[in-house]
């Protein structure tokens, strides 16, 4: 469903000059699978996902979703995905209902079909109490539910969650993970990025560990454990990161 090949993104930056945010990133995600992107802040996760959601263009490499290229068929790609990120805020002066309706209409839905879909989402996410509340007056948890409903309204085959649990309390975060699992059971193709290891351990079928814009390793939890002879995932993660860091330093010393 999602095929990413040798993706790279390069910026020119005042402080750092030419800055490589993402480099040589390749992975595939199948329907019914939750793919986890794990990495510290600034690892390039958000950049990869922004490229997948067609908000940014890749500098090189390609990414296809459902056969559509994110660069050349951006409009088609956007129809196929639901993107939830903590960068995608909601309009403060619109109610939950209006928000979901608006994005449903942007997706070309209308009439009874849209109304039914909204009712279903409100029931599924238990949003009935605050359906007519302006989102500006909502708590973070409520907002997150509206965001998810907004991303799900057109029932897309692909869902991308970028640091979706950031800033949520334990209860709401648990709820969100529950929703993600339900979506998986419904056969959706999911990408879930986070810097919290526990979430990845519990949720994801396969995991890519990212650092400095590169994927350090990729596989199922068991694959990774076997490959690195480390049962404790947290230890595994740190070993990988520090080994990369050491190589990185070595390389930096080697260049004049």
């Amino acid at each position, binding site marked *: 469903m999602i095929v990413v090949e040798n993706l790279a993104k390069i910026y020119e930056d005042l*402080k750092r000059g*030419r*800055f*490589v945010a993402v480099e040589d990133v390749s992975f595939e995600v199948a329907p019914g699978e939750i793919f986890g992107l794990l990495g510290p802040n600034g690892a390039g996760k958000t950049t990869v996902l*922004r490229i997948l959601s067609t908000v940014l263009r890749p500098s090189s490499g390609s990414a296809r979703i459902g056969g559509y290229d994110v660069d050349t068929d*951006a409009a088609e790609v*956007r129809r196929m995905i639901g993107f939830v990120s903590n960068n995608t805020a909601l309009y403060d002066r619109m109610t939950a209902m209006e928000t979901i309706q608006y994005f449903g209409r*942007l997706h070309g839905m209308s009439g009874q079909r849209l109304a039914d879909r909204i009712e279903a989402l409100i029931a599924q996410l238990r949003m009935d109490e605050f359906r007519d509340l302006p989102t500006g007056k909502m708590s973070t948890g409520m907002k997150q539910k509206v965001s998810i409903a907004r991303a799900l309204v057109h029932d897309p085959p692909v869902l991308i969650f970028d640091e979706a649990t950031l800033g949520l309390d334990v209860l709401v975060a648990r709820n969100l993970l529950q929703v993600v699992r339900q979506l998986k059971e419904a056969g959706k193709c999911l990408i879930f990025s986070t810097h919290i290891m526990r979430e990845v351990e519990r949720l994801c079928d396969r995991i890519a560990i990212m650092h400095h814009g590169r994927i350090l390793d990729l596989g199922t939890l068991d694959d990774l454990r076997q490959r690195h002879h480390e049962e404790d995932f947290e230890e595994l993660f740190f070993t990988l990161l520090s080994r990369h860091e050491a190589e990185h330093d070595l*390389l930096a010393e080697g260049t004049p």
Partner: protein
Amino acid sequence: MTLTESDAPRLKTVGLIYLREMRDQLRDRRTIFTIVILPILLYPLVGSLLLQIAQFTQQHAPRVCVIGAENLPARPALVEHAELTPRYRDAAQSIRFTWLDWEQLEDGGDDLDVPGRAERYVDSGQYDAVLLVPPDFQLHRHPDRSGQPLSRLRILTKAGADGALVAENKLRSLLGRWRDDVVADALAAQGIESNVLKPFAIETSSSHSDPGTAMLWSKLLPFVMLIWAMTGAFYPAIDLVAGEKERGTLETLLCSPALRSEIVWGKLGAVTSFSMLTALLNVASMLITSSFIFQQLNFAGGGFERPSVAALLWLLLALFPLSALFSALALAVAALARSSKEGQYYLMPLMMVTLPLVLLPMMPGMTLHLGTALIPVSGMFLLARSLVEAQYLQALLHLPLVLGVTFCCLWLATRWAQRQFEDEAVLFGDSDQWDMRSWVRHLWRDRHPVPSIAQAYACGALVLVFLFFGKMMISGLPQDTQGLAKLILLPQVGLILAPAVLMAIVLTTSLRETFRVRMPALPSLPVAVLLGFSLHPLYLSLGQWITRLYPIGEQTKAALMPFTTMLEAAPLTHLLVLMALVPAICEELVFRGFIFSGLVRGGNQMRAIIITAVFFGVSHGMLQQSISATVMGLLLGWIALRTGSVLPCFLIHCTNNALSVSLSRIQDLGWWGTQYVFVTTDDGAPGYHPLWIVMSAGVATVCLFYFYALRCNADQEAAAADWPDPHPLHARRVVSDPGLKPIA
């Protein structure tokens, strides 16, 4: 994001976005306040304030003390029984008089004489003015031999005091009238009729029923409307783009299926609506309020006339495209900002730039003609004015032109806005704090073979600023050829070429690539010379047409006269070097070299051609020259793009200038055949024979076809070499967050 996403915007989505933006703005209390409540309240409040002030000034009657009224002659009587005679009362309406006796005041008990006492009255503010009638006041006294002057009445006031001027003026007009009567009496006494003094009367009237208000409305109303249309566009534009960026809702919209163009059109519609709404509400509120106020104040003789409904409708029609234009500009500029606060900073300069276009039509003597119709915004403004003044034929004649210019600007502005929405750097540029050191380091470290876009703009701006100050510093005209050489070489080399060369040395890694000194396809060089020759007749005709459109002022002509005569006297070789070779080298290297190579980066060829031409045009200083130079600049830019080199442009430029300075001399040679090529125009300047113009236009077209067929990738290659990779990727990467907190 993608440029391939060129699908036509769907009306339904545009409408959806438009409606949402409108609803969102209408739910915002601040917007409603500034756009709806403020105008409704503002004018009545200002109006009532005005009325208060008016009443205040009316109530403030000047206090005048008259000392020695008993010394005034009995006939013609000005004062009777301590009161003005009825004949003069209306002239001195609202003056509060106090009558004091001269003799009594003189015996006041202290050392002060009467004038001293009067001075004290005025100084203390007890009276606004004191009128002194001295005891020896006498009408028709002849100056005697001892130089004794005429009898005088003295008005004393305190300089700078509030009521002094009013009091003095009223007294003067009162006394003036009395003096007229004295004169008339004296004439009558000698048997001369008083009409000797007034042989005829002067009366003013105008064909319009009410000249005062008609003029006022046709000028003021469009002005107020445009100012409010501008203001009304700014705040929603900032909120809808910069504000959304700040709040993070823009990314949500960007990853929805709405196309970038649909987002831009939807937002543009909303901003335009608010711009128009603001303008209309303000004008309506102003009209209603002012009609009441004018009636109260008896303005224009009480005959206040509201503009007709037709006039208002015309204004409304003119308002729509202008509102849309302001909105598109505001939207594009607001997109550059990362927060609402930043947006406010950016929109102020935009306002400063557009304000002259709004103020220009307010200037006296500005009417709608071919020249003014071509000026954006001003043209539409003047068109609206002639409609309000019911000059329909004139308006209709210029309508296509004004509409063409307006819609062209509108199209450019919306394209610009749309580009902003397609630019990642604009949408997601980080708002890192800017600091001098890292910026300088960045300039040095990240140098490329060709300048960056920003550096190209900076170079153009720098050259223009230098030229401006250079022009200011030139004092007097040169006396000889040497002086002339200095006058031309200094700006060309010192102010145009030098900054660009310095920038190129410091900021780029390749002078050749920066100045685009590349060898083009060989035939393009002779073809360029041919084009230079064949284009010159057209260029000359263009120049003549432009001076007809925007005539050069007599003053400027006179100032240029010595310069022209000096050019005619200078040796031809000197002229060719100074007027053709040097400008062609300097200007081409800078405009089609440095600036063009910077602007063409990123593949935006249109931008490179247009902006370079504008810089080139403005650098010519005089409006008439600037316009033709801009047109020439467009062509030179296109050829620069086609050939990938500055050399053909240099040849065209050089040939063109050389022909311009030597045309009259070639004509004077009197060779056989010149009579078929040249004619002398009405103003004595040399020109081309119409037949020759047509022929050379044909040759020029063939040359242009040749250039059209050329393909050159030199600029793209230079841009591709943009990323020299001196270090392996890893070494360049920044370790951002090595320590990661484990989360339980």
